[in-house]
């Protein structure tokens, strides 16, 4: 069974999330305080974390940063504040995706969770390369030379999406649909923040990217082979 850890201080919402997730076939671990989240996370590592931004103890963004330090588990932030700043802070702290309360419907929540839990594209296998980076899709490993680069599953998916189609320029919308599974959205901040994060891990110099190139006014593409 897939275990989802729900961190939310609103008991009723947490319970409701529990009902919805359980009825969709997930196991649910509920935590109501930010400062308890990390310990419970360590004791019983979940497959995905649903994390509210406003929490008693320490706030969700800090919890996200702490979890990210020791795990590549998918994290989806729940935010009552749709303000740009909160969303970007959450994403920068390591969240893969965010959902703004109230959710459009429960199907959307479940769809997002499933996308994050899904194994990487099954249509790509074997080795891919992008710049001086080698991606072993099957083993889910990214290396520069012999050195292993630690990526979250989402970052890995983003890199694979770009690498498997080296000539193509991806618009932010295209990446949103390919990597995040959004059918329709216009929030491209998600892509921007994750590209920045991925660059900080795979580029030699994140200010002069050679792996993930920006195509001004359009989107991103994979850099040429070194």
């Amino acid at each position, binding site marked *: 069974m897939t275990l989802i850890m729900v961190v939310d201080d609103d008991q*009723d*919402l947490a319970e*409701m999330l529990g*009902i*919805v997730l359980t009825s969709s076939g997930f196991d649910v671990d509920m935590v109501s305080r930010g400062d308890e989240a990390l310990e419970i996370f360590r004791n019983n590592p979940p497959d995905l974390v649903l994390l509210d931004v406003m929490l008693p103890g320490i706030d969700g963004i800090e919890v996200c940063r702490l979890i990210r330090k020791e795990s590549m588990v998918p994290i989806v932030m729940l935010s*009552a504040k749709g303000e740009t700043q909160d969303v970007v802070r959450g994403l920068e702290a390591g969240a893969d995706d965010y959902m703004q*309360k*109230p*959710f459009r419907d*429960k199907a959307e929540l479940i769809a997002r969770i499933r996308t994050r839990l899904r194994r990487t594209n099954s249509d790509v296998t074997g080795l891919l390369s992008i710049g001086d980076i080698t991606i072993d899709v099957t083993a889910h490993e990214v290396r520069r030379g012999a050195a292993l680069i630690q990526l979250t599953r989402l970052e890995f998916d983003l890199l694979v999406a770009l690498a498997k189609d080296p000539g193509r320029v991806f618009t932010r919308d295209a990446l949103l649909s390919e990597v995040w599974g959004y059918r329709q959205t216009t929030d491209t901040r998600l892509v921007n923040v994750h590209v920045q994060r991925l660059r900080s891990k795979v580029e030699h110099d994140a200010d002069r990217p050679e792996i993930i190139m920006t195509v001004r006014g359009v989107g991103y593409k994979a850099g040429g082979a070194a």
Partner: protein
Amino acid sequence: MNRLRRSLKHSLATRVILSTLLLSLTVVSLTGSALYSRLADGILATSLNSSLAEARYTFFNAEYQVLASQSMTIEARKQALAEFVVRTSTQGINEERREVIFVKSPGAPTTANSYEMSSNVIKNSSIPKNLRAQIKKDAKLHYAYGPAKYNEGESIDSLFVGRRIIIPTGGRYEIYIIFSLKNQTATVDLISNSLLITGVALIFLIGLITWLVVRQVVRPVREAARIANQFTQGDFTQRMKVVSTDEMATLAISYNEMALSIEEQITRLEHLSRVQQRFVSDVTHELRTPLTTLRMASEVIHVQRSSFDPLVARSSELLVAQLDRFERLLEDLLEVSRFDAEVAVLEPVDFDVIGLINRCAADFDMGGSAPTRDIQVEADEECVTINADIRRVERIMRNLLSNALDHAEGKKIVVNVVATDTEVGIGVRDYGSGLDESALTRVFDRFWREDPSRARVRGGTGLGLSIALEDARLHNGELDAWGRPHQGAHFVLTLPRKAGELINSRPIKATPKDFHQEAFYQ
């Protein structure tokens, strides 16, 4: 020239200095020329009297000589007259130069002997014509001023005094004594030069003094203007310095009191409005969490509705629908509170606006529950790329389309896109119930409904159009409305093609193109 004109228009100092200079130039030149003519006249008058006295004496002498020569031979008489000329005139060129001329009167009968003679080499022609005419008329002594010309080409300002004289065997002659005015001219020249130099210096000094004085007045005024300007730009801490007890200080004190009062008022209002906005924002945020729970709960119930009693099932449907509406209202309220707090920010990207419109139109067409409506998108170009906040433009389009669908009464809706190099115009035209004039003025008001008793078709929040207007204005764009009862409405969005720029024209006018034609044929 233009710079001077601008400087005149905008600088008090330049204007004051220039007008002072012009006025003092007039005064100095008037007094200068009056002084000059008084002095010059005086100098000439003094020398004239003595010259005339001398001339009378000389003429008397000449007549005596002529009388004495009565019995002489012609040659001896000539000799005597020549000696008289030499004696009377000065020899060589000195300051008090004096010449004598004997010249035959014009019109006198010609005689064999000519007694015409002159001292030095002065030309007879230098005698002023009008003087000769006067002398011809009567026997009195006459005088005139004019230049004495010499054969060497020299010319000296002089006083000519003359009268008639009868020379035996010679007939009617005229005798002239010419007094050089060289000294007087030099004095007058000196005076005029001094006056000119003094005048120029005076004007320069007056200009300098004016500049110094004006600066004293203008500098604090400029300083005050600078401070007021900074105050206007939002730096409410700016105050004027009070350094004296004069009128400027009074101005500074009053200004500072006003500034303090304004600052206090603004701070108070800012505080009030911040509290108000934070309250609205907090309320909206606080409502979100329970709303999320409610939505999920209602959905769980809704999914099970087939197993419910029909009344309960219908209730669950109403619950879901009203929660939807509640959520939309909440979102719109939050958006309005962002505009009110002026925290709404533009996040521009490049995108194709026609693609966006087609997508929005398709979503509405799919909207299922409503009877199929026809949304036509018309554009000259296939793709119009603009740089704008796509989320906001999409929201404007959805609001406009949703509004049009609500009022179209099942008739078609036409979306027209016209782009220029700098603007894009998007017109949404429906042919439904339309708007009357009073409605047009209020159509962008929050929560305004055309007819409060009318049933809402799509359950809009009543905030859509006002948010659309705010969104358009945030882009420096504009949203115009046109409508006629039963002839439909036309909403035109005009946006700059590049975020941050201004719109200079409206590619689509608010009055729809098809309106006049309709009126014509009806």
